């Protein structure tokens, strides 16, 4: 039997064929596919960016305001306590100096009813060496 020699044999083609007009239609089909894939996707966020930013800003402010208020109130109360403690331990400040810093409103606020009898008043006055000065001023 004669050996089969591929190189010497006339070229054997694949035998594959394509439908008529396939390549002409392919170009159109491909360009349509590519243009579909290239369609930009505009997100809702991008379209309404300004509104989103405004809403976010309002939300942040809305959340922050109560916190800021609370913080400043705490500071005030802390400051008052710290101030009182400071004043209580300051031996260089005299009661007279403290009194001079109070106005009528402050005095009314700290005013308390003292149930004192005449004997208690007399005892307090007799122990005060500056009594004469208070009377003459």
């Amino acid at each position, binding site marked *: *039997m004669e*050996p*089969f*020699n*591929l*190189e010497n044999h006339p070229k*054997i*083609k*694949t*035998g*594959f*064929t*394509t*439908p008529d007009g*396939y*390549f002409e239609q*392919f*170009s159109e*089909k*491909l360009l349509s*596919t*590519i243009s579909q*894939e290239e369609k930009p996707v505009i997100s809702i966020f991008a379209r309404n960016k300004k509104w989103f930013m405004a809403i976010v800003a309002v939300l942040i402010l809305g959340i922050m305001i109560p916190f800021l208020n609370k913080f400043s109130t705490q500071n005030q109360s802390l400051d008052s306590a710290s101030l009182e403690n400071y004043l209580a331990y300051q031996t260089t400040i005299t009661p007279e100096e403290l009194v001079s810093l109070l106005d009528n409103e402050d005095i009314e606020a700290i005013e308390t009813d003292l149930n004192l009898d005449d004997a208690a008043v007399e005892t307090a006055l007799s122990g005060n060496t500056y009594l004469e000065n208070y009377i003459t001023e």
Partner: protein
Amino acid sequence: MLLSSYQKPIYSHIRNIVLNHDDADDVLQNTFVKVFQNLKNFKGESKLFSWIYRIATNEAITFLNAKAKRNGNTSNDFQQKQIENLKADTYFEGDEIQLKLQKAIVLLPEKQQLVFKMRYFEEIKYEELSEILGTSVGALKASYHHAVKKIEEYMLTN
């Protein structure tokens, strides 16, 4: 310009791998979509020709493997089944010897099939083949030589 230059040879290349026209059409679409999407990233590391062929080869083999897997076959078994149905295929007009050659080729290992088809049917030069497949010219020549021997044996005995 790119499409008009490459669509026919790339189609033939893909068809040689997947065998079926409808499958070749799908793969050709995928190939060119990928080519156009990645063209801006192509920096000329290889020839454009080699780059496009590489994409087409990868797409065709991936497609074939996926289709074989869906049918519960290896890609080689799947190809053999495709060849058995080739005579009834609308888009195969080959004679007895063309059909016999297709049957002989499908018995080769995957890489050898590819080398043979690209060298024999598509007449791609060894240097270009080397760039596309990433294999040395020497290895490609050896692979082709082995493929030819096996095919000649099959053609003689069948």
